[in-house]
């Protein structure tokens, strides 16, 4: 941790964009949100969503390390909350990434690749999406992180 509280302030928008793009690059499977803190001007709130509970601590440590190194010398400090899949599903469903079958179905619809059989298959994927999402192994996410 390198925050000293009195460093020269650096452009806030530039910092938040860098945080978002870096988090998206390092954790492509976990949606990230970066926003101003509700009450402290030097804290930037960083939220990461839909992390498998088995990988929560490991991902959290990596996010701390990543944000601290990105914010070093800027005068800002990251306030980090990492939420698991269940909490994301309950309270922040808009941050649930599409399940692999749902994503595939969306691509098929978008690209108009659907034959009669394909349409039926895509519908099946979309109807199963929630179920399939729950079946994704935590190990898969941990490895991705």
């Amino acid at each position, binding site marked *: *941790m390198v*925050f*000293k*509280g*009195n460093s020269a302030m650096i452009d806030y928008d530039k910092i938040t964009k860098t945080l978002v793009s870096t988090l998206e690059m390092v954790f492509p499977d976990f949606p990230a949100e970066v926003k101003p*803190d*509700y*009450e*402290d*001007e*030097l*804290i930037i*709130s960083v939220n990461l969503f839909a992390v498998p509970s088995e990988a929560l601590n490991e991902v959290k440590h990596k996010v*701390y390390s990543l944000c601290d190194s990105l914010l070093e010398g800027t005068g800002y*400090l990251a*306030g*980090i*909350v990492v*939420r698991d899949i269940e*909490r994301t599903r*309950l*309270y*922040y469903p808009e941050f649930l990434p599409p399940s692999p079958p749902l994503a595939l179905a969306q691509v098929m619809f978008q690209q108009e690749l659907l034959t009669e059989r394909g349409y039926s298959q895509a519908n099946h994927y979309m109807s199963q999406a929630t179920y399939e999402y729950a079946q994704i192994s935590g190990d898969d996410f941990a490895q991705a992180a």
Partner: protein
Amino acid sequence: MLDVKAEENWRAYQNCMSERCYNAAASRLYYSVFQVIFLWAQKKKNYKDNPVKSIHAEMIGLVNKIVDQQEMPFTLNDLRELRELRRVADYERDMLNRDEIVRHEPLANIMRMWFLKEIQR
């Protein structure tokens, strides 16, 4: 007086837990630590109010300096996590549960006692 308020927050935390008011408990738990740190900053670090609205970051910054200098029974991230728990409790959409709060209690108490002892030295 801040030490009295910190103690009051610690008791309020325990009462909130008994009443299963977990979001309020998280908020009180954080303030039972924060107010002791704020008092320590004023008494031992000659902390003066800063015009920038950043009291929590300022306290974390001061604690960071001593964590860098000496071995401590807690880490800086323990304090940061406690603060973010309180952010969730006070501002975010999600409801906290008992386990999430209880996990932070031992270290919060260690932090509280450590700073109280430092103030009295």
